[in-house]
C-alpha cells in the first residue's frame, strides 16, 4: 500500500476539512442556542406530519430537530460534498496539471496504486469530517440540555457520509477519466446543485414528484434519515454510484496518455487558433483582455462569472414559473408558518409570490452566488499575485500600489453589477412570462442591494488579502464573517436577547427592509456602498505599508 501517497493526500486536506466541519459544528451550537429561546410548540400543534417531514423536522422532536435540519441537512451536506469534490477532482488530474504526477510516477509506483491510495484518502478524509460533525451532534445537545428524542443522528451521519462520497467520486471519476480537473469539479458541483433543487422542489408539485428519483440528492434527503432512520435501499444506491464512479476513474487512468504540466485551454483559446476566427478573437481574447489591470483581472474570473451569472439568470427565470406549479394549499399552509420556521428558509413568507422568490432566489442562492464571486475576487486580487510570484514583475512597471488596488476593485464592481443584472433580468422576465404579481422596480432594487452586499464582503476580502498577502486567510475570514452575518440576520431576531444585534448584519441592510415588497431602501444601500468604499480605501494603506512577497 502506498502509505506515503495516502498520508500526504490526507495531510494536504486535513486543515480545510477541520475548518469546514468545526464551523458547521459551531453553527449547530448557535442554532440550538437560538431555537431554545423560541416557542416552537406551534409546529407540533398545527402542522401536519407530512410538512414537518418535508422540512426535516422530526414529528416528536424539539429544538434539536430544527437545528439539525437547518445546519446539517443542508449546509453540512453541501460543505462535506464540496470538500470531497475538491479532493476528488484534484487527486489525479490536479497532480497532472501541476506537473507532479510524472514526478510521483518516477518512483516505483503503479498508476492504479496511486489511484487506490487517493481514493482511500478521499474515503478516510470524508469519514473524518463526518466524525467531527457526529461529535458535535452528540456533544452540543448534551451541553445545552436539548431533548434529542425522535432524532436519529447516526442515520443522518451515515447519509451525509455517503452523499459526500457520491460527489467526491463523481469528480474523481470524471477528472481522472479525462485528465481535466475543472471538468470533474464543475460537473460534480452542477449535478449536486441541480440535484438538490430537483430533489427538494419536485416533490412539492402534484405530478412530477417521482422524477425526484432521477437526482442523486434524492437518495440522501428523500428518506429523511434524521427522522426516519437509515434507508438501506438508498444507501445501497449511493454506494453503487460510488463504485461505478471509481470504476470510471480506474478504466480511464489505465487507458489514456498522461498529461504534462499544462494550462487548461478555454473555448477562447480554440477560437483564437482557428484561422477563421483568429482575427476577431485576437482582439477580444488577446489585446482587449490585457489592455489594463482591471480587464486582465476580469478575464481571470470569466469562468466564474459565466457560471454565477447563468445560475442567477436561469434560476430567476425558472422560479416564478415553478411557483405557478405549487398547489395553493401548500402556499396557504406556508403562509401560516411561525417566524422561527420561516427564518429557517431564509426569512421569507412563502405564501406570496414575492416571498417565494425571496426564499428561493434572494435569501440564500443569490447571496451565496454573489459572495462566492466577490469574496474569491477580493481575496485573490492582491494576495494571489503575491502567492503566484507575479507581484514583483507587475510592480516592476511604473504603477503605484494604490492604482493596483483600485484597478482590482473596479473588476470586482463590474462583475458584481453583472450578477445583479442577471438576477434582475432573470426574475423579471420569469415574472412577466407567468404574470406574477411582483414589481419590476422592486426586483431591481433587491438585485441592486444584493450587488452592494456582495461588494461589502468582497471589500472585506480585499482588505484582509491586502493586509496579509494570503488569499486563503482572506476568503476564510470573509466567509466566516458572512456566515455570522447571515446568522445574525435570520436567527437573532427570533430571540429577544440577540435581536438588537441583528441590525449590525449586512444581510439586514440587504433584506431587512423587505425590498421585494417595499422597494429600494436608499439608506441601507448607501450604508452598504459606504462599507465597500471604506474597505477599499483602507486596503490601500494596509497594502502599501507591507513588505510584499512574490
Amino acid at each position, binding site marked *: 500500500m502506498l502509505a506515503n501517497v495516502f498520508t500526504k493526500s490526507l495531510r494536504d486536506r486535513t486543515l480545510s476539512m477541520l475548518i469546514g466541519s468545526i464551523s458547521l459544528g459551531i453553527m449547530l451550537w448557535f442554532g440550538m442556542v437560538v431555537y431554545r429561546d423560541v416557542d416552537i410548540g406551534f409546529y407540533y400543534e398545527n402542522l401536519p406530519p407530512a410538512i414537518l417531514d418535508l422540512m426535516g423536522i422530526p414529528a416528536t422532536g424539539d429544538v434539536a430537530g430544527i437545528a439539525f435540519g437547518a445546519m446539517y441537512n443542508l449546509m453540512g451536506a453541501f460543505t462535506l460534498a464540496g470538500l470531497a469534490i475538491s479532493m476528488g477532482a484534484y487527486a489525479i488530474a490536479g497532480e497532472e496539471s501541476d506537473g507532479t504526477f510524472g514526478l510521483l510516477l518516477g518512483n516505483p509506483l503503479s498508476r492504479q496504486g496511486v489511484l487506490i491510495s487517493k481514493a482511500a484518502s478521499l474515503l478516510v478524509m470524508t469519514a473524518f469530517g463526518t466524525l467531527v460533525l457526529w461529535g458535535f451532534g452528540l456533544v452540543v445537545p448534551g451541553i445545552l440540555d436539548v431533548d434529542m428524542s425522535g432524532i436519529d443522528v447516526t442515520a443522518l451521519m451515515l447519509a451525509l457520509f455517503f452523499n459526500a462520497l457520491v460527489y467526491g467520486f463523481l469528480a474523481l471519476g470524471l477528472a481522472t477519466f479525462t485528465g481535466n480537473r475543472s471538468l470533474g469539479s464543475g460537473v460534480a458541483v452542477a449535478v449536486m446543485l441541480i440535484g438538490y433543487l430537483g430533489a427538494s422542489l419536485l416533490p412539492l408539485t402534484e405530478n412530477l414528484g417521482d422524477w425526484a428519483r432521477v437526482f442523486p440528492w434524492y437518495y440522501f434527503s428523500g428518506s429523511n434519515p434524521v427522522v426516519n432512520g437509515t434507508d438501506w435501499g438508498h444507501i445501497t444506491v449511493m454506494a453503487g454510484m460510488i463504485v461505478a464512479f471509481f470504476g470510471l476513474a480506474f478504466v480511464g487512468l489505465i487507458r489514456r496518455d498522461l498529461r504534462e504540466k499544462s494550462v487548461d485551454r478555454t473555448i477562447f483559446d480554440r477560437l483564437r487558433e482557428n484561422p477563421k476566427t483568429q482575427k476577431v478573437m485576437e482582439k477580444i481574447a488577446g489585446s482587449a483582455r490585457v489592455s489594463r489591470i482591471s480587464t486582465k483581472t476580469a478575464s481571470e474570473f470569466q469562468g466564474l462569472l459565466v457560471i454565477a451569472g447563468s445560475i442567477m439568470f436561469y434560476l430567476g427565470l425558472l422560479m416564478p414559473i415553478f411557483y405557478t406549479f405549487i398547489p395553493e394549499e401548500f402556499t396557504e399552509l406556508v403562509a401560516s408558518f411561525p417566524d422561527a420556521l420561516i427564518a429557517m428558509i431564509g426569512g421569507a413568507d412563502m405564501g406570496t409570490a414575492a416571498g417565494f422568490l425571496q426564499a428561493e432566489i434572494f435569501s440564500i442562492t443569490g447571496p451565496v452566488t454573489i459572495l462566492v464571486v466577490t469574496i474569491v475576487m477580493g481575496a485573490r486580487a492582491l494576495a494571489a499575485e503575491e502567492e503566484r*510570484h507575479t*507581484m514583483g514583475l507587475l510592480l*516592476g512597471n511604473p504603477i503605484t500600489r494604490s492604482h493596483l488596488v483600485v484597478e482590482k476593485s473596479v473588476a470586482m464592481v463590474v462583475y458584481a453589477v453583472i450578477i445583479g443584472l442577471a438576477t434582475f433580468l432573470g426574475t423579471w422576465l420569469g415574472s412577466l412570462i407567468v404574470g406574477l404579481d411582483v414589481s419590476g422596480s422592486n426586483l431591481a432594487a433587491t438585485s441592486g442591494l444584493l450587488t452592494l452586499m456582495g461588494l461589502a464582503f468582497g471589500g472585506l476580502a480585499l482588505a484582509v488579502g491586502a493586509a496579509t498577502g494570503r488569499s486563503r486567510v482572506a476568503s476564510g475570514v470573509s466567509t466566516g464573517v458572512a456566515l455570522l452575518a447571515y446568522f445574525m440576520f435570520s436567527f437573532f431576531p427570533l430571540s429577544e436577547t440577540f435581536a438588537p444585534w441583528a441590525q449590525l448584519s449586512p444581510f439586514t441592510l440587504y433584506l431587512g427592509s423587505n425590498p421585494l415588497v417595499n422597494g429600494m431602501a436608499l439608506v441601507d444601500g448607501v450604508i452598504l456602498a459606504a462599507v465597500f468604499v471604506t474597505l477599499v480605501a483602507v486596503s490601500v494603506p494596509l497594502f502599501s505599508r507591507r513588505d*510584499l512577497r512574490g
Partner: protein
Amino acid sequence: MSEQPAILTETLTKHYGEVKALVDLDLEVRMGEVFGFLGPNGAGKTTMIRTILDLIHPTSGRASILGLDSREDAVEIRRHVGYLPSDLSMYPNLTGRDMITYFSNLRGGVDKAYVDDLAERLQADLAKKVGDLSSGNRQKVGLILTFMSRPQLLIMDEPSTGLDPLMQREFQMMMREVAVEGRSVFLSSHTLSEVQRVADRVGIIRNARLVDVEFVDDLRSKAIRTVELQFDGPVEADVFAAVPGVRDVEVASHHATMSFDGKMDTLLRTATEHYTLVDVNTQEADLEEIFLEYYREGATV
C-alpha cells in the same frame, strides 16, 4: 540623468525580525556599466534588489536609483527600470504576446519593432501560452519584457536560468549593447562564468554583507590559473620559473604545466622568446577557487 549613479545605496539594511537579510550595504553602480552581483544562495542578493525596487521596505539606510529616492519616487524609478525577478513566474493563461501587450500597456506603450527584433534574436515563441512553455522559453519572454522599454537600468535576478548556451551568448551580447549605449545592467548571479564574461565590475555579497567590489579584469589577473604550454621541442623549467607569478612548474619534454597568477602577456612573451609555442591551454578553475574562498564562511579576503 546620466551624471547620477545608476544605483547608490547607503548603509542599506533589511531585517526580518531576528534575521539579518542585508547589513549596511554601500554600493554604487555607474551608468554605462554591467555590474555583476555575485553571491551564494541566500546571501541577500534578491533582498537587495527587492528593497531598491520598493517591493520591501528597508529597516534602515537608503537607496537611490538614477538619482531618485527608492521610496519616494518608486513609480518614477520603475518607469526607467526594467526588472526581471528570479524564478520568473508569469500568468500561465496568457501567451507571450499577451504578456508583452499587457506590460506595454502598463508602461504606456513600447516600440513594437524593437519587441519583434528582440523576439527574433532570442527565438522566442510568443504565440504559446506561458504556462505551456519550458523554463528556458519562459525566460526568453521575461527577457523581452525587461529589455523592451529600453530602460536606463536593467535589474535582472538570475536571468539566464534555463537558457541554452547559444541563447546565453546572445543574451550576453544584448547586455553589452546596453552598456555601450550608456545604459546600465545590474546582474545578480551565483555563477561566476556568466558574470565574468559580461560584467565590467563585480560585487560579492556573503551572509548579507558586501564583501568586495572589483573590476573583473583585476580579479582575473589575481586569479591563479593552471597554464599548459605545448612547444615544438623540449623546454626547461627555469625559463618559466623566472616569470613573476609562476609557481610549481612541471616540465615533461615538449610540455610545461604551471600555476600562474600574473599577467598572461608576460608569460607568453617569455615563452615565445625562447621557444616556438604550439598550443596554449589555461584552466580557469582557479578563478572559481577565488570565489569559493569569498563564498566560504569566515573566509578572510
